[in-house]
């Protein structure tokens, strides 16, 4: 599973994408992905908030994740 990273998320992880294999963790939902990220990179727990996008749409915590989904971490936006 590939996760796209932007803004401060990219800085925290140190790269613009992270690959999570099923050996690392079995992530079945947005909530599980968020928990995993905070566990693996505690800096995520210090953000104001962060969202997850599945197939380039904001996804609620209960949205399931599938292998072919395009998944992205969306830290607090600050456009404009």
């Amino acid at each position, binding site marked *: 599973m590939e996760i*796209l990273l932007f803004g401060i998320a990219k800085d925290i992880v140190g790269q613009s994408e992270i690959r999570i294999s099923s050996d690392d963790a079995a992530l079945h939902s947005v909530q599980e992905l968020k928990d995993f990220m905070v566990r693996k990179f505690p800096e995520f727990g210090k953000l104001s908030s962060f969202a997850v*996008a599945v197939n380039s749409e904001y996804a609620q915590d209960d949205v399931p994740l599938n292998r072919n989904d395009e998944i992205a971490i969306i830290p607090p936006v*600050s*456009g*404009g």
Partner: protein
Amino acid sequence: MDRKIIEIVQTIDTSQVFTDLSDAQSGGICVFVGTVREFTQGEAVVSLEFETYEKMALKEMDKIASDALEKWKLNKVIIRHAVGLKKVEEPVVVVGASSAHRDACFEACRYLIDTLKETVPIWKKEVFENKAVWVSAHP
């Protein structure tokens, strides 16, 4: 003819926006331009850097424009955001709407910029002399 202009660009040309929004059925055009301000809480900004998740940002911008076209009687709507490095006084975002009467374009223009700042996946890093900060990232 499409009533929405949704763009992510490297450089914004503000001289173009009224032509983009002009329409024979419109009596009013309201436009907001966001620019790089020299000082943030008393500290001198050297530059801003904008990054985006472009595919998703364009989708979210399109939703905002469509919502505005539904909420108000508008003829045209524009949302154009720049990415990359921006210096002081440079424009970073242009939003606007044209309508028969001015109430609609004023309200829509405000809605466009307010909603863009809430939902569109664009991130701004403020670069100061001695540090760089992702805006809004931390409480």
